Every structure is written in C-alpha cells, then in structure tokens.
C-alpha cells in the first residue's frame, strides 16, 4: 500500500501562499479597485452614472444580445454535442475542430470577418444596401458577432458529458416505446442538465463581456450600438473615470453572479454524481421459496 503523497509542511504552505497571493493580486485587488473607484464620489454620483440614458441603453443592448445569443447557442450546442457524441459521421472531426474555432482566433478577427461579409464594401454589402438592410454598425451585427464568439461554450461543455453517458439509456427508452421527443425531454436532457447549465453560465458571461469582436462591428454609436464594455471604454477615453468604473461595476456584479452560479452548479453536479453506498440486501426471499 502506498502512503498518500504528502509534501513537507513548508512546501505546502508556500504553494498555498503563492496561489492565494496571486489570486489576491490579480483578482481581488482589481475588483476592489473597481468598486472603490465607482463609489469615489458617493452613492448618488454612482447611481447617476448608471441611470444616465446612454448607460441604460448600453445595458439594454447587452441584455438583448445575451438574450438572443445564449438561447441560440444552447440550441446549437445541444444539436452539435448530440451529433458528435451519438453518431460517427463523415466530417465529425471537422465539426469538432470548427467548434473550437472561436477559441482559436482573436475576437477582433472574428469581428472583421463580419465587416468583410456584411460591410458596405463586403461580399453581401451591395445586396444588403439594395434591400435596405443594415447589419454591420447595427444591432444585428453585434448579435451575430456575439453568437460567433460564444458558440463553443455550450457545445464544449456538453460533448464530454454526453459521451460519458453513452447511448444505453436512450436505447432503453426507445425499446420501451418512447418517441424521439420524449427521449430528449425525459432522458437526454435531465442527464445533461447540469453540464448544460454550466455551459449557459459561461456562455452568458462571455456574451455580456465580449469586447473585441463587438467593438469592430459596433460602430460605437452612443445610445444605439454600444454595449456595456464598449460604453465603459468610451467613458474611460473621455476621462470620466468615476462613471466608467460605475458602469464597469455592473459588469463585475454580473461576473460575480456568474461565479456563484457556477459554484452552485458544480456543487450540485458533484452531489448528484456521487455514488451512494448500495442498500444492504435482506435475505433473498426467492431462495426461501425455492425450497420444496
């Protein structure tokens, strides 16, 4: 029997200190700074900055974008992970690679792609102009860019969960007479719900916080095409530090909510995934019955 691995006490303390120190320096201090700067001139100034019409418009746009991007990616993520986990089809590995694409390329490039596609000089630009449709430098472009940047999150979360689960339970449901729809709602979805929720939380965090791609396609029209992160940048560039930090604190609160939701989900996942000890069996009755 091997002894459980332990390191000398000093090494353990050092490692813990480094980890905590790093966390404090790069996470806690900036977070505290954000709130400190935001509240520098008191609560009324803070509330004023948030209630300012352009800030409210940015908040609305951010929420709208997330409200479209997250459900879209839930649908895409479910479909893609189901296809990848359940079937072996030509192009499966290509699909897996493509899902990771937004992780691999810079968000700015993603934004530029949309400008190249839908912009006035872009491929579809003349056609869009002829039909009086505006995508780039308007809300649709922002939504599209956000969907693109966030689409790996749900799929990436679900693929390993679905692969681990295998086909067995779904096949059992088929044999028991369930329709495809019933199998999805009663068997597949309940089994992946925590993984799905985790993916949604991450996807939502990114959708609300995305800067690069959105910045390229937005056009920075105040009150119209500014999301919260863009609005923070504008305020900061105009030396309205307190207002910038006040709006930034909204994003920070969203991030904190996300983190809490994430821990809850992880905790629930562990709680349901844990194997409980089997019940001790009472003496089997069928054995008694077997004797003449």
């Amino acid at each position, binding site marked *: 029997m091997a002894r459980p691995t332990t390191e000398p006490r000093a090494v353990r303390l050092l490692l813990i200190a480094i980890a905590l120190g790093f966390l404090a320096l790069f996470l806690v201090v900036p977070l505290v700074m954000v709130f400190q700067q935001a509240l520098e001139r008191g609560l009324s100034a803070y509330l004023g900055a948030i209630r300012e019409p352009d800030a409210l418009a940015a908040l609305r746009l951010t929420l709208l974008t997330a409200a479209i991007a997250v459900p879209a990616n839930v649908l895409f993520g479910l479909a893609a992970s189901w296809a990848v986990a359940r079937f072996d089809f030509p192009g499966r590995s290509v699909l897996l690679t493509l899902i990771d694409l937004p992780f691999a390329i810079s968000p700015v490039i993603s934004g530029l792609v949309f400008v190249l596609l839908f912009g006035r000089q872009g491929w579809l630009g003349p056609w869009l102009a002829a039909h009086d449709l505006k995508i780039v430098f308007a809300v649709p472009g922002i939504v599209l860019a956000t969907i693109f940047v966030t689409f790996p999150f749900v799929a990436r979360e679900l693929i390993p969960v679905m692969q681990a689960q295998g086909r*067995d*339970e779904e*096949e*059992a*449901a*088929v*044999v*028991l*007479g*369930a*329709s495809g729809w*019933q199998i999805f709602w*009663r*068997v597949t979805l*309940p*089994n992946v719900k925590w993984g799905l929720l985790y993916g949604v939380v991450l996807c939502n965090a990114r959708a609300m916080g995305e800067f690069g791609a959105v910045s390229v396609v937005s056009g920075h029209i105040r009150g119209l095409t500014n999301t919260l992160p863009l609005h923070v940048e504008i305020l900061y560039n105009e030396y309205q530090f307190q207002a910038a930090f006040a709006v930034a604190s909204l994003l920070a609160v969203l991030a904190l909510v996300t983190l809490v939701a994430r821990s809850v989900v992880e905790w629930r996942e562990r709680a*349901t995934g*844990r*194997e*409980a*000890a*089997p*019940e001790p*069996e*009472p003496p*089997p*009755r*069928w*054995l008694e019955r*077997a004797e003449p």
Partner: protein
Amino acid sequence: MSIEVRNVTKTFGSFTAVNDVSLQVPDGELVALLGPSGSGKTSLLRIIAGLERPDRGQVLFEGQDATRREAKERRVGFVFQHYALFRHMTVFENVAFGLRVRRRETRPPEAAIREKVTGLLRMVQLDWLSDRRPSQLSGGQRQRVALARALAVEPRVLLLDEPFGSLDAKVRQELRRWLRRLHDEIRLTSVFVTHDQEEALEVADRVVVMNQGRVEQIGSPEEIFDRPATPFVIQFMGNVNVFHGRVQDGKAHFGPLALDYPDHPHPEERPAAGFTRPYDLDVERSAEGGGGFWATLRHATPAGAVVRLQLEGADGALLHVEMPRDRHEALLPQLGERLYLRPRQVRVFLEPSR
C-alpha cells in the same frame, strides 16, 4: 410469441458481425445465444430488438415480417448488459417509464400505473426500494429493476444481453435460478446472450452456439453437451484434450491410439482431430486390454471431488485428466510415473485437407 430469424447478415465496416444466421424460437421458449466475445450474439439480439438494422435477411414475429418495424413498435422487453437504468429517476419511475410515455389514448390511468409498477417491484422483490435512485442499488438489484422495467410494457418477447455478466458469482447463481423460475411462471418467449456455457446449459431450453458470426449448433443443452456438432462447440463447452491424426478405411489413428470411425469407410486418407474430455480418460498402471496410450505424470492438483492431473504424452503433448478423488487415493500415482491412459469416449471430426 415466436421469433424467426432468416438469413440475417450484419456488417460493421469491414467486420462481419452476423453472417447469414437463421434460427427459430418457438413461443414460450427460453433460448440462449452462447458464444465467445465477437461471435455476433449481441448484434443478433439487437437486430431482433430493432436496435440494429440487418444488411440482409428478415426478422419475423409470429410469422410476420418485422424487419422494417421500429424498435418502439416491436413490443420487446430488452434488458441491457449494464442495466441502462435512467439514473435521474427513482426505481419506481424507471419501471413506470414505458407506461408513462404511451399516447394518451392507450396510457393507463395513474392509479393503474401505480398498481402495475408496485406489483412488478413486488415480483422482483424490490418494492421496499421504490424511492431509491439506481446509484443507490447493488448490481443484482439494478438487474432486477431493469427486468421489471422491461416487463412493465407487457412485451411479447423478452431479450436479455449478458443479464448476469457483471455480477459476482454468488448473486449470479441466485439470479440465474430465479430467472428460470420466473420464465416457468410467465412463459414469455425469451432470448438471452451469454458467454458462459454453464449458464446457458443451466437456464435455457435451447442453446444456440455462435462463433465468428455464424451458428455452430442449435440444440437442447443435452444435445449441445453430449453431441457437439463441430470442433468449436466441443472446445467451447469446456476443457478438452485434442489429438491430431488421420482416418482411413473406417478407422481413426491418433498416434498409438486406434479407434473405429465408420463415418469414413473410404480408402483415401483424411486428416482428423479427436477430442476427449478430461473426465473421459481412465488412468491405469498396466496396458492390459489396450485401447490407450502411455503418458508421464507431471502435475496433480486436488480440486474438490476430483484430482486434476497433467500428463505428458510420448509426443510431448500436454494432457488433462480428471480423476475422482477415491480412485486417485486407490491408485496413488507418483509424479514422473508412466501411466496408461484409456479414453472412454473420443469424438472424431474430419479436418479440412491440407
């Protein structure tokens, strides 16, 4: 309900899992599909269930072609090797699932579902666990929940894939006997897959021995064991000694051993193999009476009621013999001693000519 499989073939890529298999399961019978892993038995079971489509051939239920029928329309009960219980549902809900997913017109009312499920759980003796999750049950309990769930939809056929495969030896024994008794009570046409010949012989009315996607033999347990049709069957059904030799003019010759073999009365010589079980070899000190050959004792291990001997023949081949313990005590053979082995029964099969 009777099942018939006609010339079914199924390939996965370049691998032929089931190769032109035909078999019949009469109504009310319990049939075992027996074979080593990769012999196609599970694929065949899944084809009968409708979980897999055959490339060629037909599956008939009660004489009617069901090949193109969807799995959910076949009304089969399927018990999966690893149970495949719905992990997020209680034991009760697992068993009730097949009733709850029915269309509204055919779905029984809640009270009827409750009664039915409770009755089934009582039958598998798990009514006291109906609120538990599958993860809280032992392997044997999960297996019985899976069985109750399969029976809840009142299937016309029960299919079981390695039903006792992942249980420990004792639970396995108990469940085996229980399944046999259950079958005698409800008389539901059943097919189960196993790689354990003992299990197949003990539980089934009829055994289908499969190898490399083909059926080697179909018969009652007695037929399979006493009159194996092919060298594969005889080797798969337990430990056996093999002699290689030839047949000619109604005689089989295996080294010093000569036997009658009336099936080949021709003067042309054919290669053949002889098989004899370890307990079909008598051990003597003298060659009196003939009909045997000499071998040297190398090893002796007591194993319960018998003693297992390993001997080396004149050609260096290893021979396995099982002697009843009292016979061994009377003879007391010594290691290194030359002993005379006389087979009581040898099965001879012609080998393909080289």
